[in-house]
């Protein structure tokens, strides 16, 4: 396990140059893109002197390389700066911190739906290869992947929210008054921890549609991946040997084979996490989910450079830590893997 520790340390250190390249790219793109944070935050038609004065106080009139240097220097001190627009001078870190739990909750719930639906259905399809269920599931996997995620969200809102009126279609909770005490920031978890059943039910109802949207959207990839991995594993000698020992078919398929098929699937989960976050951004907008994704989209329209850069850094860190987590899981599941 000591070597695993060293491996993880190296992996962590490697994320630093990766993030450096990313923030540099984002910095440049934002400055090249048309639009201006000052103009987008004040009344149109304000006098040019006034605009210039604000630009000066914000340091936006300095040469780009100086701004870039300042930005990196601050980032090095874990300072994400203050907002420019629509409101000036708020701490970006604090705003991100406030929006983060909502995104985490959605992402985790989406991942859970993907894992259960994708892996479960994929394994079932492999088990019943060439049956009607298998063909239907393969079709499902292709269709669900081709559908745009926001369209899927809209359909869910329409059917389950508007027509059937089962689930709410926006927000995380009915009113902030019933929100559970802040522990992790995940409403479902916090309400469980505090035994606040009303809040638990309410937040689960709110979470259901966005999590289903995001989870089902990604499930197609996992149905296909699980199915093909399972078909390979089911052909392996140890599966035949397990059957020859009289182990019941269900145990052979869903315990022995599935566990072996899971190893590449977990890697895929790690790789798909970036896609999950992208899906989360879109899903958050569709469901007015007050998370980082919606925050990012909003700040892009205001050209609020520090917020955009900050959110991107956080997303990148998330992707990096998930891939690290996947490596750890990998080592835990597969005894053959030692770093």
């Amino acid at each position, binding site marked *: 396990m000591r070597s695993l520790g060293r491996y993880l340390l190296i992996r962590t250190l490697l994320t630093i140059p990766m993030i450096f390249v990313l923030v540099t790219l984002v910095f440049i793109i934002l400055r090249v893109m048309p639009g201006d944070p000052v103009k987008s935050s004040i009344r149109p038609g304000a006098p040019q002197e006034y605009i210039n004065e604000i630009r000066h106080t914000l340091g936006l009139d300095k040469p780009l390389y100086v701004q870039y240097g300042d930005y990196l220097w601050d980032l090095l001190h874990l300072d994400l700066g203050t907002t420019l627009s629509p409101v000036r001078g708020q701490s970006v870190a604090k705003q991100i911190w406030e929006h983060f739990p909502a995104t985490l909750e959605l992402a985790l719930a989406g991942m859970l739906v993907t894992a259960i639906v994708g892996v479960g259905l994929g394994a079932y399809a492999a088990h019943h290869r060439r049956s009607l269920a298998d063909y239907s599931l393969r079709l499902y996997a292709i269709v669900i992947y081709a559908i745009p995620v926001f369209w899927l969200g809209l359909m869910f809102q329409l059917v389950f929210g508007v027509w059937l009126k089962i689930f709410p279609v926006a927000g995380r909770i009915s009113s902030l008054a019933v929100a559970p005490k802040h522990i992790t920031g995940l409403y479902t978890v916090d309400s469980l921890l505090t035994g606040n059943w009303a809040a638990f039910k309410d937040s689960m109802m709110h979470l259901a549609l966005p999590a289903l949207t995001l989870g089902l959207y990604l499930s197609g990839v996992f149905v296909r991946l699980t199915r093909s991995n399972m078909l390979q594993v089911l052909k392996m000698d*140890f599966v035949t040997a*397990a059957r*020859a*020992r009289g*182990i019941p078919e269900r145990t052979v398929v869903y315990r022995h084979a599935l566990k072996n098929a899971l190893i590449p699937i977990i890697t895929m989960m790690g790789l798909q996490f970036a896609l999950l976050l992208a899906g989360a951004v879109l899903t958050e907008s569709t469901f007015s989910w007050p998370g980082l994704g919606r925050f990012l989209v909003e700040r892009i329209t205001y050209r609020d450079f520090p917020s955009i850069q900050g959110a991107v850094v956080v997303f990148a860190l998330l992707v990096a830590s998930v891939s690290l987590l996947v490596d750890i899981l990998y080592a835990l599941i*597969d*005894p053959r893997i030692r770093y």
Partner: protein
Amino acid sequence: MEPLLQVEHLTVTYETRQGPVRAVDDVSFTVYRGEVLGLVGESGCGKSTLGMALLRMVRPPGRITSGRLIFQGRDLLQLPENEMRKLRGRHISMVFQDPMTSLNPLQRIGDHIVETIRTHEPHVSKKEAWERAARLIQRLGISPDRLRDYPHQLSGGMRQRIMIGIGLALNADLIIADEPTTSLDVIVEAQFLDLLRELRDEFNLTLILITHNIGVVAELADRVAVMYAGRMAEIGPVHDVFHRTLHPYTKGLLASVPSIRLEDGLELETLSGAPPSLLEPPPGCRFHPRCPQAKPICSQRVPPWKEIHPGHGTACWLYAEEGA
């Protein structure tokens, strides 16, 4: 001798794109309790297919198309799948060729054995099963600590011993070992065969030993069955088959093994040519294109089975009436 398994007119067919392949064609023989029966023949003659058929586990597109498998008074081919499953591992156990791949890489050695015991004897507690496994592998010459290891941490020889151990754990009536030593190196192979010999005497094992190594048969088997191109060519006690060889194919097979001394200095021609395609096998006796003693009838009619000495029979026109 008490018959344990009677195989009657067993036929296994692979439905391939080119047409049906009868990998096992009208094969009959009996396995007696407490014996080691060697099953030999060239590569592709259907030995593994026959072994898998005895467990009713022929891989698709293969299928048992006819015959009977009378095991302890019941025809296995008539059993519902769930009954058959309960027989596997408990009454009939299989040891595969490659011990590297026949254990689940993510499952500890001990859990393989415990899982098998508890599948067939659900009332046994985990702890009890684990202790049984520990005693067992100690008998096989492996330290019980190894139960906590994963398959990749064991050597090939150890893994193969574990596979045998799984069969012994439930006291299987019949163990089928399909080329169990092919993937082992010579020294480990010798050790493994020694162990098998010991176990045979100690547990009164009934073993079908599939191999293309005649030397292994000579050392370990009581009787030997020789297959050629999906059919049974000759069966008999090892001594008889080696020294009063009937079938020309068996003679050729033995001639290719220098270590077996033939008593009366019988000159044997080694085999030439290759085994036939099972997709379109030669008519009559399938061996006739390669047989040095072939007669005209050999290419026309399938030779009938004849018992020449007690318990020693063959399918060859040299020993049968042509008019019959």
